């Protein structure tokens, strides 16, 4: 099937996302139910759990860190390079590139996207659209994490403690622990990918240099 072959990468990761999200909701429900029982509270239905901030806060904290990772990676690779890494442009290519290199405005090809041919606002927006969308998803999912965390902590505070407000929650260890535990692993993985791909190869992967390419060669396309 041609459509399946042409789009296999996004279809695989879409399927993996749905399966693992379902798995997270089931495991999370059992863990939540056990916690409720330990505290002598009535069990909730699975549907109520999925529509609760207890589940949302766990989903959102992972979403925000993944999109922050890609947002920073896309932004940093404009201006910074790593010699020898296929994840990087070659040294000397730092920056946003000329209009000719980027095929925008008068340098657009016949089959370039219309917003690449356009001038002014539309060209600026389209030229940065990947970064804008990744950054927006990061900000909104971090906002969702903070809102859901506020509700969860307010429910936990019912044991004789005052309700917590959203600004107060932003200053709690819980918010920053959830945030930073995800950030550190994302930055470690990205840094490792950049550094390890200098000397290591994966034959056939677009994330690797060809096996026989010298270690000092940074980016195949720009060489």
């Amino acid at each position, binding site marked *: 099937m041609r459509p399946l072959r042409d789009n296999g990468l996004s279809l695989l990761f879409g399927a993996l996302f749905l399966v693992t999200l379902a798995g997270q909701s089931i495991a999370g429900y059992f863990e939540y139910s056990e916690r409720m029982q330990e505290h002598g509270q009535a069990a909730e239905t699975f549907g109520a759990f999925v529509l*609760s901030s207890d589940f949302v806060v766990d*989903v959102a904290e992972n979403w925000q860190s993944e999109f922050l990772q890609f947002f920073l990676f896309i932004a940093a690779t404009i201006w910074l390079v790593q010699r020898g890494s296929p994840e990087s442009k070659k040294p000397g290519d730092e920056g946003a590139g000329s209009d000719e290199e980027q095929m925008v405005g008068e340098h657009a090809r016949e089959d370039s996207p219309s917003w690449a041919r356009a001038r002014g606002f539309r060209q600026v927006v389209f030229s940065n659209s990947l970064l804008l969308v990744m950054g927006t998803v990061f900000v909104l999912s971090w906002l*969702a994490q903070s809102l859901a965390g506020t*509700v969860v902590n307010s429910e936990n505070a019912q044991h004789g403690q005052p309700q917590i407000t959203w600004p107060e929650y932003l200053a709690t260890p819980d918010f920053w622990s959830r945030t930073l535990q995800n950030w550190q692993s994302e930055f470690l993985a990205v840094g490792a990918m950049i550094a390890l791909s200098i000397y290591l190869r994966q034959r056939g992967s677009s994330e690797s240099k060809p096996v026989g390419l010298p270690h000092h060669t940074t980016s195949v396309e720009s060489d």
Partner: protein
Amino acid sequence: MAHFTPEEEGARIGEAAVFWSWIAVLAVGLAYMIIVPLTGR
């Protein structure tokens, strides 16, 4: 205007379907994650 063969046109439709499906997943996911806590659940 660029012209495409029926096969190329089919591939372009597939690309667009993939792109907008992912945009929809992100939009629905973000809306769900923001609305649930705002309703106090």
